[in-house]
């Protein structure tokens, strides 16, 4: 077995940003709030930060252990195993959902007649190959694609400004119908997706090279991506108008498609699709890697690479099976998954085991100390 790779702080930062933007920038985030969607995103960010603080708190208690290793310590071996398997399935389900998002995007934008499984299998095979080269490679590739994404993102922003297609009157009045509708639209969708999905990083915190910075850099990356998301949503609405923006599947694409500079630079949506692909790539890859890591602990598998293919294939078929059509998929994603899947896994279970930990703190620390002494 190879030595566990340590993630550098730069890689941690770029991975979080790519992960957070991954699929969230694609679908209309918080569009239930109408023209105040960008506010809903910011509210989601604030709430998401609290979830992140909870995850970081638990990491500080077990700086050497990932989620899958400290869960059994807290809730007991067998129940811990059950929870671990649930988390594994949760992350795989999330990966499948993101994969479906991107598959559908490609089908609607480019490959009208291609079966979704073909498009998705190309993506999952690429991810398996890159993870096969090691998480190190994924992290370093992330650095390069982060730079590329920033470059393309900025140039599109400049083009949007240059094309003069934004009408900021569309987002006014801010919270015109009072704050309640905005808050109602925000909870629980925006805090859980994408900010609460940071729970996946509880599996990666122990592998940071500089653990002290897990909180500060993580928060910076989260806030940066939250602001980008909010700005994007606001720009979508300013370009398309509140009504259209809330009713198209991919508001960002429709907005970018409006760019037309001198009859030469036009239809940039096709180009944007492929920048988005890289974001989705990293999000799915992180979910796959995290579920592989949990599976490695649950089934005590020595070589993590041997798990990539089976789990990848399950995710591939899962991505096709999660919904029978795209409308159903999006509907599930906005109305069912946040309430019944995100909230339990991101809030209820973490709060539950944190409380148990606080109660049994002394005996757990003792167990940890004896366990580590027998290990060494």
């Amino acid at each position, binding site marked *: 077995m190879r030595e566990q790779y340590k993630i550098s702080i*730069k*890689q941690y930062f770029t991975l979080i940003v790519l992960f957070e933007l991954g699929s969230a920038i694609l679908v209309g985030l918080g569009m239930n709030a109408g023209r105040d969607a960008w506010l809903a995103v910011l509210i989601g960010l604030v709430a998401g930060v609290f979830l992140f603080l909870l995850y970081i708190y638990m990491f500080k208690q077990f700086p050497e252990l990932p989620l899958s290793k400290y869960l059994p310590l807290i809730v007991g071996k067998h129940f811990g195993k059950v929870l671990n398997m649930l988390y594994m399935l949760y992350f795989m389900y999330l990966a499948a959902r993101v994969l479906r998002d991107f598959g559908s995007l490609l089908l609607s934008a480019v490959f009208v007649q291609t079966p979704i499984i073909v*498009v998705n299998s*190309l993506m999952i095979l690429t991810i398996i190959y*890159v993870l096969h080269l090691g998480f190190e490679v994924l992290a370093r*590739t992330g650095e390069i694609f982060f730079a590329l994404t920033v470059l393309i993102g900025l140039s599109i922003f400049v083009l949007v400004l240059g094309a003069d297609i934004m009408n900021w009157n569309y987002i006014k009045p801010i919270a015109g119908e009072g704050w309640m509708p905005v808050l109602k639209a925000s909870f629980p969708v925006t805090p859980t997706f994408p900010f609460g999905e940071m729970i996946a990083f509880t599996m990666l915190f122990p592998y940071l090279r500089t653990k002290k910075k897990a909180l500060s850099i993580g928060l910076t990356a989260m806030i940066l991506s939250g602001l980008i998301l909010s700005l994007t949503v606001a720009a979508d609405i300013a370009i398309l108008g509140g009504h259209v923006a809330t009713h198209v599947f991919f508001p960002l694409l429709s907005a970018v498609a409006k760019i037309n500079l001198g009859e030469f630079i036009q239809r940039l949506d*096709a*180009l944007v699709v492929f920048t988005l692909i890289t974001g989705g790539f990293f999000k799915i890859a992180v979910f796959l890697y995290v579920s592989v890591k949990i599976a490695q602990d649950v089934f005590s598998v020595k070589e993590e690479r041997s798990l990539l293919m089976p789990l990848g294939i399950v995710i591939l078929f899962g991505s096709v099976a999660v919904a029978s059509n795209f409308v159903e998929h999006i509907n599930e994603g906005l109305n069912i998954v946040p309430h019944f899947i995100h909230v339990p896994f991101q809030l209820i279970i973490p709060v539950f085991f944190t409380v148990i930990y606080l109660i049994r703190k002394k005996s757990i620390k003792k167990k940890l100390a004896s366990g580590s002494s027998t290990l060494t």
Partner: protein
Amino acid sequence: MKKNRNNRHSNSMNEEQDMPVNLEGTSSASENNTDDGASNSVVSSSIEHVITYIKTELGNPGDLVVRHLNLEVGLKIKAAVIFIDELVDSQKIAEFVIERLQTVPVHIKDMPATFGESFYFIKENSLSLGTVAEIENYNDLLDGLLAGNTAIYINGFPKVLMAEAIGGSSRAIQEPTSEVVIRGPKEAFTELLKTNIGLVRRKIRSSDLRVEQMKLGRVTKTPIALLYINNIADPKLIEEMKTRLERIDADSILESGQLEEFIQDETFTVFPQLFSTERPDVVAGDLLEGRVAVMVNGTPFTLIAPTQFVQFFQSPEDYYMRYDIGSFLRMLRFFVFIVSLIAPSIYIALTTFHQAMIPTTLLFGLAAQREGVPFPAFVEALMMEITFEILREAGIRMPRPVGVAVSIVGALVLGQAAVQAGLVSPVMVIVVGITAVASFAVPSFAVATSARLLRFPLMLISSIFGFYGLTLALIVIIAHLTSLRSFGVPYLSPIAPFNMDDMKDAFFRFPIKSMLKRPSLISQKNRVRMTNHETQKSRGE
């Protein structure tokens, strides 16, 4: 008196440690040792035995020269000068060996009385060549002869003098052919290892420049030199390079390309993992950054390790020109590499899947041109690319006069006629033309070939999946690049893992005054390259 002399001899033996001679054997062999059986046995003290032995071992070749001499050095002795013609400088031998041997130095009063004494007498007084070693077994004798040394044998003493008068014809130092610059030194390495080491030594006149020589190849016994600068190169790197070189057990090393395959980290990749150059200034520059160079006798191409991907886009000229134009040219080269890699794929993807992205008027033009073409864009592109590859290969291998004919056939018949015949569209010819020119503009031939190979799978995938396939394929290529390592140094550094300091010399070439440190991953301890007194002063004030 005799004791004194013997002491002197042993001293002189110790001084000559850099000779290619095994000095481990003791001089305990008796004078009447006539054992000439095993090859590593001690040289016989009879002239007939020695000459017969050499002739049988070498198969009595026609180019072996044995010159018998009758000398009078105190006492009358028989001697022989043995060498292989064409490996030696025969003028030197005539002038500094044979003539000197035949002229007895009369002014010396203390003439030798035994064969042994006359052997040392000759070594010290009668040979006016720089390098003379004494050897005592047959193995070294044969190796020395085959390496181009001249053996001087004195009858009656079981040792042989090996004088170095290596000659024979070799190429003169000429301008580099594969790395041409407008400004900068115009000399390139040659096939002779000695010359090449000298060219580097002339650039770095430091006692810290170390040259370690070894021989590789069981049959070819190719001399190899490992060059590094003592205080700058990482000792671990030098150790690693030595172990990798020593691990090689092959018949032959004829070119540094063969050596490269033995010592590279990863076999299954299209990317070159060791940088090779024929320019002494490039080697000197890389040594000063803390890298090591491996030279192989018989080729002008020197290997440099560890190698980073960005090195292939750096031309020595970047550092000789102003930094602004240097930076511009460097960015241009990266762009050109990307063009040569994906230009046909982008054309295929655009025309097959993403017509909407083409401006409308241009789209009409393209559609009109493609109207008569019966093939899909991929087949069209593949045909043209393969045609181009054939032309290129033919152009390189053909004799010069025929090469002109090839280019006429290529340009006129295959370019224009193919368009007129409706086989390919004119735009396709432009795309292939741009790709071809771009691939010639990449400064390193080695990395241009990897783009050449990767072009075809990229074309295929973008004909099936458009930009989506192309994006994923590029992710795979970049991930593969980040997974590569050259002697422990990440191939894609300083881009990933990112390093701000080293970025000054990656995509851009910052002003030399601002590059105060050596690349961080390569020279780990001794990193300060220069002190910028100007900035220090301004800070101090």
